[in-house]
């Protein structure tokens, strides 16, 4: 099927997110403004004020309440969205676990920003990486176009009856959130049809009846009550199962969307760039991939077999794709825009290295921590990473496993 003709409009990353949410027929938006996410809330409240959407917009006093509103709305079968960043996400932490435990498919945009202290409003991944284990699906966008596309896909993924997991879409603070870009947008009706109505699975209630999974006075059920050593463990195992199922659903939804829009991001979970015949590769998340692709092109012109694997979905971790794309490389560098203090490397490094451990001949994998607090990461720094990878291939030796790049020594 040929991709639809689409309107091109100039939007920054935050506006692209708000525009996507506008088209997704969302019932409830509850949010609290925080830089660099504020534009999402501002734009969306304008849509509400102008009567462009039929959404209950709840102004709350904190992010903790924002997510609580969305969680409870989603528990009634509604479609709910919120957005936050940095300290706002940290304040939500408790409710992140309640949301995934209640299997409430809330979609949330995280405009990735550094955590205090010292206070810093610029982009890095410290905020959402700190929420790695809260049972949310993590999708990270490389540009504003992808942020728009990912929000639309996120509702389908989160609300899939076999998944029912809250989903966050990360976009880099300022680099994406405040930078104008030409964004192709689908017609309203197309998005509405693609996202569709929420389909609720049936659950057995306390009377032994099968009823839709939602809080409804006609068919009352209890969601997320006290659960001790007798059943808590079983419910957590169900969340793990949902994550495993999400792998295929993410792929399917991404492919269906690609047919519609003509836009594809690898297989929806990882995006390889000139990686097929590459000998050395970097792995990264988010907007930095754009810079890395430019560097890869420059290196290829010089005959260096360089490639990139961009991790689009961090949870569920696409282990089989990581193995598929990296197992035959001669050296791999993982770029982390977050620091796991005392953890012998950043969070992405841990995951990639772990995924490759069982291979008979695994490539050497090194780590670069970069860009904390919005520190610029220009092409020459990425060149430095590839130069070091070439050196590792030549000498067969890693001098330093965990490195800091763009830092004054």
């Amino acid at each position, binding site marked *: 099927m040929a991709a639809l003709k689409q309107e091109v409009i100039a939007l920054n990353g935050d506006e692209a997110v708000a525009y996507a949410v506008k088209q997704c027929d969302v019932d409830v938006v509850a949010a609290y403004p925080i830089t660099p996410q504020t534009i999402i809330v501002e734009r969306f409240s304008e849509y509400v004020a102008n009567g462009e959407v039929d959404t209950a917009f709840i102004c709350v006093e904190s992010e903790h309440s924002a997510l609580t509103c969305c969680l409870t709305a989603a528990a009634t079968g509604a479609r709910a969205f919120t957005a936050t960043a940095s300290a706002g996400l940290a304040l939500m932490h408790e409710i992140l676990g309640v949301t995934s435990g209640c299997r409430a498919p809330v979609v949330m945009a995280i405009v990735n920003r550094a955590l205090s202290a010292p206070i810093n409003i610029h982009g890095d991944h410290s905020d959402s990486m700190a929420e790695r284990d809260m049972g949310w699906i993590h999708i990270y966008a490389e540009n504003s176009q992808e942020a728009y596309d990912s929000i639309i896909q996120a509702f389908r993924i989160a609300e899939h009856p076999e998944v029912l997991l809250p989903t966050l879409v990360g976009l880099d603070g300022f680099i994406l959130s405040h930078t104008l870009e030409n964004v192709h947008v689908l017609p309203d009706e197309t998005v509405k049809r693609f996202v569709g109505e929420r389909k609720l699975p049936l659950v*057995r209630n*306390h009377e032994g009846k099968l009823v839709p999974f939602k809080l409804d006075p006609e068919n009352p059920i209890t*969601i*997320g009550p006290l659960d001790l050593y007798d059943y808590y463990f079983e419910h957590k195992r169900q969340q793990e199962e949902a994550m495993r199922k999400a792998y295929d659903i993410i792929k399917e939804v991404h492919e269906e969307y690609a047919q519609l829009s003509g836009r594809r991001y690898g297989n929806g979970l990882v995006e390889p760039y000139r990686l097929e015949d590459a000998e050395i590769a970097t792995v990264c998340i988010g907007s930095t991939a754009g810079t890395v692709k430019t560097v890869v092109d420059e290196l290829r012109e010089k005959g260096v077999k360089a490639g990139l694997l961009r991790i689009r979905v961090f949870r569920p971790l696409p282990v089989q794709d990581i193995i598929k794309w990296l197992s035959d490389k001669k050296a791999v560098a993982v770029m982390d825009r977050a620091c796991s203090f005392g953890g012998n490397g950043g969070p992405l490094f841990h995951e990639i290295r772990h995924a490759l451990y069982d291979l008979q001949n695994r490539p050497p994998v090194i780590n670069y921590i970069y860009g904390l607090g919005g520190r610029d990461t220009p092409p020459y720094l990425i060149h430095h990473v590839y130069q070091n990878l070439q050196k590792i291939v030549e000498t067969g030796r890693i001098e330093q496993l965990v490195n800091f790049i763009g830092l004054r020594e």
Partner: protein
Amino acid sequence: MSPEYKSWKEIPIAGVCWVPSTEYKTGDWRTYKPVWDSEKCIRCMLCHIYCPEGAIKYNAETDEMEFNYDFCKGCGICANECPKEAIKMVLEGKE
């Protein structure tokens, strides 16, 4: 874990209760057990009113206060409220 418990594949998601709370017995949480003295009791029903679990009932046929030990968690509110000290909290197993 006892075989009477269900596996993660058999239970509803999100902790949705598939049995009513009357079938989920919580009496084994109890450390102290209320023991009732018919002689001292004036049948004022304050224990019945105050019991947060609804575990104390008056049986009109036998004229006795009945304690449902499947649900009594041993909080001792009944003993505290009893104006006649007709309820004593006794360590479980020592009654």
